[in-house]
C-alpha cells in the first residue's frame, strides 16, 4: 500500500521557485533518496513533507489521509519520525533521558505536574536504545558521546513514536565514512524488518547508492530523473549536472560493494 503520496508540491520564496510541482510516492518498508546540487530544493521539499514549511500548492497524503500543511508535532502523532542534518537532541539530558522524553511526548504525558519523570518509561527507553546499539551508554550525558553515537540516539528518539514514515535530512552528514555505512545499514535493517518507509536526502553517494531502493534527482526545484540506483547512475543528464566523474565512480563502487 502507498504510505506517502506527494502531489504537485510547489513553494516560492520571493520570486524564486524553490520547488516546482514535485510529485512522488513511497511504499511501506521502502527507502527513497532525494539527491541534487545545493540549493536544488531538497530541503524545501523535505520540509514541506515534514511540516516545517507550508506549501504554496500541492498535497501530501499519508496512508490515504491528507496531511498537507500539518505542523511537525501533529505529523509526529500520526506516525512521522524525523532526524535532522545537525542532530537535534536534548543536550542537558542523559542518553536515556532523551528517549524517555520522546516516550513521554508520545504518550501525551508532558503536562503532568507531579510524577517523577526520570522513573517513567525506563524499560521501553532502554529497549529502544538496544535496537540502535546504544543501551550500554544509557546513563551518560548525551553531550559526551561521539557524533556518530548521537545520531544513533537521535534515531532511537525518532523511533519512540512508533513511526510508519521516517524523514531523515542528510542522515550521515558530519560523520566518518565508517560510521556512515554502519548507520545506513542500521536504518535499512529497521526499515525493512518493521515496514517503515524512509525518505532521506543525502550528499554521500556511498550511502545513497548502497541503500536506496529508488532515487529522485532534484535540480532547480524540478525532478529531472527518478528510478532505481542503476538507472539514475547511468543517466547522462544526472552525470552532467550532479554526479560528475567522482560521483559516478563512487556510485558504481557503492553498488558493487553492497550488492556484489
Amino acid at each position: 500500500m502507498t504510505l506517502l503520496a506527494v502531489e504537485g508540491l510547489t513553494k516560492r520564496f520571493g520570486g524564486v521557485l524553490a520547488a516546482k510541482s514535485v510529485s512522488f510516492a513511497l511504499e511501506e518498508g521502502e527507502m527513497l533518496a532525494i539527491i541534487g546540487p545545493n540549493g536544488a530544493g531538497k530541503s524545501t521539499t523535505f520540509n514541506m513533507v515534514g511540516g516545517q514549511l507550508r506549501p504554496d500548492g500541492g498535497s501530501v497524503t499519508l496512508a490515504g489521509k491528507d496531511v498537507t500543511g500539518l505542523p511537525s508535532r501533529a505529523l509526529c502523532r500520526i506516525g512521522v519520525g524525523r532526524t535532522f542534518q545537525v542532530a537535534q537532541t536534548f543536550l542537558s539530558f542523559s542518553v536515556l533521558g532523551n528517549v524517555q522524553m520522546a516516550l513521554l511526548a508520545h504518550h501525551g504525558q508532558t503536562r503532568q505536574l507531579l510524577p517523577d519523570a526520570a522513573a517513567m518509561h525506563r524499560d521501553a527507553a532502554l529497549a529502544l536504545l538496544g535496537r540502535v546499539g546504544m543501551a550500554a551508554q544509557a546513563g551518560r550525558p548525551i553531550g559526551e558521546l561521539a557524533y556518530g553515537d548521537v545520531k544513533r540516539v537521535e534515531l532511537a528518539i525518532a523511533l519512540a513514536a512508533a513511526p510508519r514514515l521516517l524523514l531523515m535530512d542528510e542522515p550521515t552528514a558530519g560523520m566518518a565514512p565508517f560510521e556512515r555505512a554502519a548507520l545506513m545499514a542500521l536504518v535499512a535493517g529497521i526499515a525493512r524488518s518493521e515496514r517503515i518507509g524512509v525518505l532521506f536526502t543525502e550528499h554521500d553517494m556511498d550511502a545513497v547508492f548502497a541503500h536506496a531502493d529508488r532515487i529522485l534527482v532534484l535540480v532547480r526545484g524540478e525532478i529531472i530523473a527518478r528510478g532505481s540506483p542503476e538507472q539514475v547512475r547511468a543517466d547522462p543528464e544526472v552525470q552532467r549536472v550532479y554526479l560528475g566523474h567522482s560521483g559516478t565512480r563512487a556510485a558504481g563502487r557503492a553498488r558493487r560493494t553492497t550488492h556484489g
Partner: protein
Amino acid sequence: MEWSFLLVQALSGLASASSLFVIASGLTIVFGVTRIVNFAHGSFYMLGAYVAVTLVPWLLEFERSPTLFFVGVLASAIAVGVLGVVMEVTLLRRIYRVPELFQLLATFGVVLIVQDLVLLIWGPVEIAGPRAPGLRHGVYILDQRFPAYELFLIFVGPAVLALLWLLMHRTRFGVLIRAATQDREMVGALGVNQAMLFTGTLFLGAALAGLGGALQIPRVSASSQMDLSIITEAFVVTVIGGMGSVPGAFIAALLIGLLQAFGVLIFPKITLVLVFLLMAAVLVVKPWGLLGRPDAAAGRAVLPEGILDPGRLDRAGKVLLALGLITVLALPLVDAYAVKVGTEVLILALAAVSLNFLVGNGGIVSFGHAAYFGLGAYGAGLLVVKAGMPMEPALIAAPIAGGAAAALFGFFVVRLSGIYLAMLTLAFAQIAYAVVFQWVEVTGGDNGLVGVWPSRWAASREVYHYLTAVVTLAAIVFLRRVIHAPFGATLRAARDSAQRADAIGVDVRMHRWLGFTLAGAAAGLAGGLYAFSKGSIDPTLLGIPMSVDFLSMILLGGIQSVLGPVAGAAAFHALKDFFLPLTDHWRLFLGLSIIGMVLVFPRGLAGAFASLRRRPA
C-alpha cells in the same frame, strides 16, 4: 479639528521621532556588533544632556552664536563617545562570552553607578539648558506657531540616517562593522583586530546617544530620571525595527513618534500603552521586528553555560536545607527585626524560585518578573482596601492576578526567544508599571495604597511569619516537584532544542505559555504575601529595579541549581538590608556588586559551592 492643528501635531511627532531615532540607532548598532543589549545606553543619553547643559552655556559666554551652540553639542557627543570607549575597555570586553542575561545585568549595574555619579556631580536639582541661538523663534505654518528648533530636529534624523548609511557602505570601517554583525570570529580570522572594531563601535553608539541627549537641552531639562524612561523607548524602537537594523530603527521611530503625537489626542493618559500595543502587534506578525532577521546563532546546538541541571540533593545539600528550615522556624525566638527580615526572605525566595523556573528550567529569560509579583500584591491589596475583603480570599486572588497577567503577556512573550524575549518581558512590565502609576483613582498612583493588613489571627509578626513559611515553602516544594515531573522536563527539552521537541510531538509554544503562567501565579502569590507583610503597596513593586533584584538573586544563587535561588534571595536581601542604611550611595554600591557578581561568580553561589567541593582534596 483643523488641518493646521493636525499638521503641527504631525510635525511635533516627526521631531520626537527624529530624536528617538538618533538614540536608538546607537543602541541597535552596538547590539549588532557586540550582541550586547546595552542598558547603559540611556545613561549615555543622560550624560550627553548633562555635559551639554554644562558645556554649551560656557561656550555661549564667549559668543551667542549658533556655531558655538552646535560645537558644544557635538563636543558633548564626542565626550560621551569617549565614556563609551571606557565602558567597552573596562567592562564589556570581559563579558562578550557570558550569557545574555548576565550582560544585561552588568550593563544595568552601570546604569545604577551612573545615576549616583550624576547625583554626586550635578546634584539632585534639574538643570535647564540654553535655547539654541538663531533657532529661538517660531515659524508660522498655516497660522499655527511651530518652534524653529523642532523643525530643525526633524531634519537631524534623516541626516544621521544618511551619514550612517554612507559610513556603513562606503567606508572600510562600516563594511567591517556589517561583517562583524554577522560573524565576529570570522572577521578576526581574516586579520581584523576585533578589539579595535568593538571599541570603535562603542564610541559610535555612545556618541549617538550623547548627541541625542545634547540635542534635547533646549526642549527638556537635564534630570537624573532621563535614563530609564528613554531606554525603554529606545528598546521598543529597536525591537519593532529589528535588532541591529538601522533603517528598521528609523521606520520604527517614525511610527512611534506619530503614534504618540496623535495618540495623545485620543487617549491622553495612556500613550505609553498604545506604543506597547503597537510593539505587541508587530511582534506577533514579524517576531524579529520589521527589518530584523532571526539571530544566526540561535540555531547553534551548544549547551548554554549555567543552565538548570536538576540533580538530586546530596547529603551536604540536605544538611544545608535542614539548617535553613531550622533557622526559619527559630527566627521568632531572636527578635522582631529578625522575624521581619526572615519573612521577607521567604517571600523573595518564592519569587526567585518562580523566576528561575522560567530562566533556568525553561530558558525563558524574563526581565520583567516584578510585574507579576507587583500585580499579585495589587490584586490582594485592592481587594482588602477597596472591596473590604479579608486576607484569606485576597491571598487566593494574588496568584490568580499574577497568573492572569502572565497568561495575557505570556501569549506574546512565548512567540519569541533569547534577547527579544527578554526585552519584550521588560516592555510588558513597563506597561503594567505605567498603568498602575497613571490610574491614580484606583491604584493611588505614585503613593500607592496603605492599610493592607492581615486578618486578626495572623496580625502578629510571629504568626504571619509562620503563615508565610508554610505557604512559601509549600509553593517552593511544589515548583521543585514540577521541575522533576514530565512538565518540567518538557520545558527543559524545549529549551535544549525546540526543533527536536516539536518533532517528538510537543507543542512548544503551549508548554512555554503554561510555564510562564505558572511562574507568574507563583510570583503573584509571593507579591500578595509581601503586601500583607508591609501593610502597603506602591508601584515600585512592579519596577525595573525590582525585576533586577530578582535576577540578581537567582544569579547570586546560581541558575543551574533548583534551590540555589533560595540561598541567593537570602544572601541578596540580607546584604541589601544591612548596607542600605549605611550609605547614601547604595546604587553605586549595588551596581558595583552586580558587576562584580557577573565577573566573579558567573555560576552563582551554588556553582561556586559545587566547584569547591568537586575540587580534589
